[in-house]
């Protein structure tokens, strides 16, 4: 028990002394002459003899008054203490393992918030009674159970010790959702302790029953931090260098000057300083910095030369990789538009004469293993009876996908709208596309319509097993000569978009840089059945790829750094090896100043932070006052009945 105003207790001897002095002052009694007092004296004697408390009689009133006075002084001293609420109830610990918990302001000697959290949680576990049960739930941007509800302290301790901090951002909603699933519908709700710095993302809409006792153990003290909150790499064309953008946030109250160093990791494990810049970042602002390099390939580490409490966001990783030329095969009996447009695309691989590889439709063999070498096959006015695995761009005919039907030619087709956000339609103006005729395809529900006309889909994305196709229902050679779309700048852009989309070039660039906690989507060559992922820490895991998967999704990216992925076929042979970099890059995580209160929904009052995992300190002055009042009433009763005592 602690006292907020302990001075009143120090004054207790003076008050008690004054009371005792007052008590010894004789009561001024009214004098009354009676005929004789001897009967009165006998009556008093009778009462005294019959009283079981006659020894206490003289001092009982003084004792009661002293007790009441002490209790009132106790109430004035504002005692706060534990009423033992957590005893006998289940306890659930929500443990924040997001990146900001790596801040080194958790305690003395550079203890991190995470280490402090573990110590506080351990203290709470140690303080549980033998009948008390506890469960551990960890959360960052998602939540997962660490230990089920158990009264085994060793199990809880072991689970706590295995917990590691992550480089993920944090979000409270998943944790509360998991918590709600563990709260019984009947019986006493568990005591819930949230160990966090309060940087838990958006809380509006996160609701928790107001009857669930929630305690927020705040971890961390400082808020001054400078960190990298964004990294982007723009790769040049084939044979060109690259540019890297770095965004630096100054979350402190003062302007900061710091250095930004870029290191290249060498194959022998050492690093080489590539570039270094000095950067002035005003308080609360984000400052960008651009690095340009001739380097087209390599593992790059960006580091802030600045001391703060949160080192995890002072480093970022980027992967530079030369763009690979895309191999495109044109299956056509002759289409100059397509031929010229593809040959003008620097990313498309040409033969020694600068020509696009082309075969006649009659020479197309879907079972030819050579077709697997092409990133994309363009079928111009060619209705193949069967297609092998691969990516296709078709004009004027539908690919032989089940359910995708060709209803024949329709006239005077007008473009209605198109999905500008789709990678295939970006920066393309289909409004200039005039179509005297086009074929009418019936799209399946799983197909994605990219361009729609009044007669049906004009461009759609269709998939069947290991085949992916961008299907155009119009024939480029049937377009009117005057004002033809094939002469419009949109045409080569459309082809370039489709080539990069189907060839995977855009995805490859995006998949090189990922935020922590995100999911990497990687395209894989046909025949891939498994992928081995090596994390920055060296830990590996194997993922299976099933037939029908459109992409390999690598989740659980909790660690910043370089991830390596090896794709294997059924025989275990390596088909392709790829890499990507994961960065924290989160503005909310770099704002490390701990939050003083959690506001959950509209029904609950804000939950004030407490410094440690002690049960909440209850103000006890009301209880002391109530007991004092009861004592005063007892004293009054005794005073009126004291002839009995």
């Amino acid at each position: 028990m602690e006292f907020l105003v302990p001075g009143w207790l120090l004054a207790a001897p003076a008050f008690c002394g004054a009371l005792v002095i007052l008590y010894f002052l004789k009561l001024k009694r009214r004098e009354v002459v009676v005929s004789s007092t001897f009967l009165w004296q006998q009556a008093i004697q009778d009462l005294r003899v019959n009283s079981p408390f006659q020894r206490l009689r003289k001092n009982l009133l003084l004792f009661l008054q002293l007790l009441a006075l002490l209790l009132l002084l106790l109430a004035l001293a504002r005692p706060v203490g534990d009423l033992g609420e957590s005893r006998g109830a289940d306890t659930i610990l929500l443990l924040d393992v997001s990146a900001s918990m790596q801040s080194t302001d958790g305690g003395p000697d550079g203890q991190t918030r995470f280490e402090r959290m573990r110590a506080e949680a351990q203290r709470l576990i140690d303080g549980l009674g033998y009948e008390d049960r506890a469960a551990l739930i960890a959360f960052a941007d998602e939540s997962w159970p660490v230990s089920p509800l158990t009264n085994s302290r060793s199990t809880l301790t072991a689970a706590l010790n295995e917990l590691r901090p992550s480089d993920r951002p944090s979000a409270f909603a998943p944790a509360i959702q998991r918590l709600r699933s563990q709260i019984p519908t009947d019986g006493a709700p568990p005591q819930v302790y949230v160990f966090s710095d309060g940087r838990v993302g958006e809380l509006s809409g996160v609701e928790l029953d107001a009857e669930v006792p929630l305690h927020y153990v705040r971890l961390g003290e400082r808020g001054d931090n400078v960190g990298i909150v964004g990294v982007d790499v723009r790769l040049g064309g084939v044979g060109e260098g690259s540019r890297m953008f770095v965004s630096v946030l100054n979350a402190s109250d003062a302007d900061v000057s710091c250095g930004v160093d870029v290191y290249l990791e060498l194959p022998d494990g050492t690093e080489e300083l590539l570039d270094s810049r000095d950067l002035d970042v005003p308080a609360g602002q984000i400052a960008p910095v651009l690095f340009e390099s001739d380097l087209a390939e390599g593992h790059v580490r960006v580091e802030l030369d600045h001391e703060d409490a949160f080192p995890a966001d002072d480093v970022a990783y980027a992967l530079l990789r030369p763009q690979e030329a895309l191999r495109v095969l044109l299956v056509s009996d002759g289409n100059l538009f397509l031929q010229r447009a593809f040959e003008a695309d620097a990313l498309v691989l040409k033969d020694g004469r600068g020509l696009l590889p082309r075969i006649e439709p009659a020479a197309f063999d879907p079972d030819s293993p050579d077709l697997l070498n092409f990133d994309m096959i363009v079928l111009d006015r060619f209705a193949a009876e069967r297609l092998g695995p691969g990516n296709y761009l078709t004009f004027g005919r539908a690919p032989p996908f089940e359910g995708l039907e060709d209803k024949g030619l329709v006239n005077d087709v007008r473009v209605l709208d198109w999905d500008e956000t789709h990678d295939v339609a970006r920066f393309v103006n289909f409004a200039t596309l005039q179509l005297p005729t086009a074929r009418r395809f019936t799209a399946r529900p799983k197909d994605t319509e990219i361009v729609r006309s009044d007669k049906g889909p004009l461009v759609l994305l269709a998939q069947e097993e290991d085949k992916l196709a961008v299907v155009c229902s119009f024939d480029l050679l049937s377009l009117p000569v005057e004002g033809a779309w094939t002469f419009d700048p949109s045409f080569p852009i459309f082809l370039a978009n489709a080539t990069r989309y189907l060839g995977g070039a855009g995805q490859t660039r995006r998949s090189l840089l990922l935020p922590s906690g995100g999911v990497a989507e990687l395209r894989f060559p046909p025949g891939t059945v498994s992928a081995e992922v090596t994390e920055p820490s060296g830990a590996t895991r194997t993922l299976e790829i099933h037939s029908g998967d459109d992409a390999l999704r690598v989740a659980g990216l909790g660690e910043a750094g370089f991830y390596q992925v090896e794709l294997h076929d059924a025989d275990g042979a390596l088909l392709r090896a790829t890499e990507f970099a994961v960065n924290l890059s989160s503005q909310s995580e770099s704002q490390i100043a701990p939050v003083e209160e959690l506001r959950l929904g509209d029904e609950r009052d804000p939950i004030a932070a407490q410094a440690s995992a002690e049960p909440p300190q209850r103000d006890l002055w009301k209880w002391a006052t109530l007991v004092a009042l009861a004592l005063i009433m007892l004293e009054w009763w005794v005073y009126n009945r004291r002839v009995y005592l």
Partner: protein
Amino acid sequence: MKPTADGELDFAGTLAEEPPGLLSQDFLAKVGRLDLVSRKILQGRVKGEKRSKKRGRSVEFADHRPYAPGDDLRFLDWNIFARLDQLMIKLFMEEEDLHVYLLLDTSASMDYGRPNKFRYAQKLIAGLAYIGLVNMNRVGVGTFSSALDRSLRPERGRRNLHKVVRFLEETTPGGRTDLSASCRRFALEHPRRGVVILISDFMDRKGYDEAIRYFVARRMDVFCLQVLSPQELDPPLVGDLKLIDPEDDDATELTISRPLLEAYKRRLNTHLAQLREFCHKRGARYLTASTELPFERLIVDHLRLHGLVR
């Protein structure tokens, strides 16, 4: 009795509030035909109107006794001597006058209550004295507190009433009570047997036993009349008080509550019951009178009921 509206608790020294005059003409007229009665046959000094145990020369035969030398030969019963050959002396009832001793407690405790106990006792003494005097009894009056203060020699005849009244009116309450010493002294000074009417509140810390025993031992016909005020029977006291005993200035500090009042009443009832029982065991008569009861009714109704007057 409840406290008065103004919270008055003090009922001591209320004698001055009483109207003057001890006996009224109405009272004298009412009790004119009453007479004092003794349950015992008592001897008197002169031949009177009461039968005496003293065998004398009256005409009413009482008994025989053997002759002893020196006896008056005139009272020898010769008929017995002739028949039984024994000398027997004839004893006759001798009629004598009745001695009535009226003893008044004048201690300070009697000056209490409303109506005042002392004035009430004075009136009782005066009334009983009047009844005794008009019936030719010898009436003696004594007042006592810590000792026998004053006494009036037994007189008879209506003409002595004014002496008694004046004697009473000259008496003032005060001093401590000592029943034992006072009664012993009175018994010694008045050896003639008779009716002793002791009027007191019997509030004597040393007790009343010896006092009554002195009279009983002298074969007096003792009548104890205990006079109490309503304020003693049901005290209107409450709260934190300092009770003062007027006789010895003893101060008792107490907080009067309902339980204490009940304990007081229990103790008072015990005190009255013990006195009553003590008197009955010793052939004395006893009566408690509240000063609320008009003293005329006490004499005419209650004392007649108890056989003191007829």
